[in-house]
């Protein structure tokens, strides 16, 4: 296979990889916030369930979770879902990353001083306004470096979608490498991942800087 064909193939895979990446972020960032609310809930049951969820998601391999999410409908419920492969991948990534994000949010939220809540309360803000106007913007600024870390890990984790034979970049690179008995596709994939992450890090740094106007 010519180098150009290979790069084209990998490029196609890259689009698929980017798809997993963006969709996962889109859903898992808000989901993580909801889970973190559960984790900090005054209700013991809600808190317990959230804690258990986080513990399972962080305590088992993502690869295993991908397999479970994909095969469970058939093996457990006997459902034969068509076109479930890609949704299953997104679902598995989302529930996994939401658990990590939840703990990052929790750390951020708990680091905001009680005084901010009290000032908001005395000024008459309701709970919703207090959280979304006063607390969350400060939390986002504080947790951004941790979010960047997770985001970069996510770029690389998308390669795990190969266990469900999804044609993302890593899966394709492996196939070409096997067919051509060449290291080149794998090296090229590495370069692609690196460039992707370089862009992610660059973007996150810009966002961090844009929030740097206050301490």
């Amino acid at each position, binding site marked *: 296979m010519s180098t150009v064909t290979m790069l084209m193939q990998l490029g196609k895979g890259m689009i698929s990889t980017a798809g997993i990446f963006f969709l996962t972020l889109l859903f898992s960032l808000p989901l993580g916030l909801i889970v973190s609310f559960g984790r900090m809930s005054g209700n013991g049951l809600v808190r317990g369930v959230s804690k258990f969820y986080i513990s399972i998601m962080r305590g088992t391999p993502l690869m295993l979770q991908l397999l479970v999410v994909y095969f469970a409908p058939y093996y457990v419920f006997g459902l034969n879902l068509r076109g479930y492969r890609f949704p299953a991948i997104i679902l598995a990534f989302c529930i996994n990353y939401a658990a990590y994000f939840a703990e990052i949010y929790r750390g951020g939220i708990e680091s905001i*001083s009680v*005084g*901010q809540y*009290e*000032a908001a*309360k*005395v*000024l*008459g*803000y309701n709970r919703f*306004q207090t959280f979304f*106007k*006063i607390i969350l*913007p*400060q939390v986002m*600024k504080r947790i951004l470096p941790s979010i960047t870390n997770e985001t970069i890990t996510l770029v690389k984790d998308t390669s795990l979608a190969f266990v469900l034979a999804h044609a993302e970049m890593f899966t394709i690179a492996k196939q070409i490498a096997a067919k051509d008995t060449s290291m080149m596709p794998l090296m090229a994939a590495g370069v692609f991942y690196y460039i992707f992450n370089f862009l992610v890090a660059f973007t996150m740094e810009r966002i961090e800087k844009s929030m740097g*106007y*206050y*301490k």
Partner: protein
Amino acid sequence: MGKNVLLEINHMSKGFGELDVIRDISLSVREGEVVSIIGPSGSGKSTLLRCATMLERMDGGELIYLGERAAWEEEGRCVYAGKSRRKEIRKYFGLVFQNFNLFPHYTVLKNIIDAPVCVAGLSKRDAVERARMLLEQLGLSDKEQAYPCQLSGGQQQRVSIARALALQPRILFFDEPTSALDPELTGEVLKVIRQLAKEHMTMIIVTHEMQFARELSDRIIFMEQGVIRAQGTPQEIFNSKDERVREFIGKFAG
């Protein structure tokens, strides 16, 4: 000077676990009055203020603003007015914190106008106009677009006073407003409070600044171990026969 009672506290009590921090405190504050609360650390001054501003739930007693009950006792338990009532009652007072608690991600102007616009429903134009007037009064006109982290402690505290005043409260509470400031910056904050006293703002001030309390207050309350040990005009308190009061004031007078 008006004579209506703005705040009435009857038999307030508050404990944390085994510890009784406030024991059966009653006091009322009339319109235009400046009341200072002094006393040693752990005497319950700040807790009294936090209960009065509903940041802390009291265990017993009655809390009344302008004749409206915010909390009262029923069958030996303290009950609070419903959420919307409490929200209305909160509009009667403002609170200035020891640590300012400005919102760090908002500019000075936004800190001051946000609550009037988003909570009190004032138009942005009116809120800005009001904020600019306050900033000018407090000598901060050039800091409108600054962020709290760019200001000195004294400036931050003045902004937080402006923020409280922007909601036009009937009573302004101060919780040790100068304790986080060095002596040089203390002066500029005290000057602002003095100015407010001249305009007959009703104020309740927890403070360690004895001379300030003496010069400014209509009444001084001396607290110790959760009770009001003595109260009276500055003259009465500073010439008190009570041994504990004399000892405490003596310590501060040097």
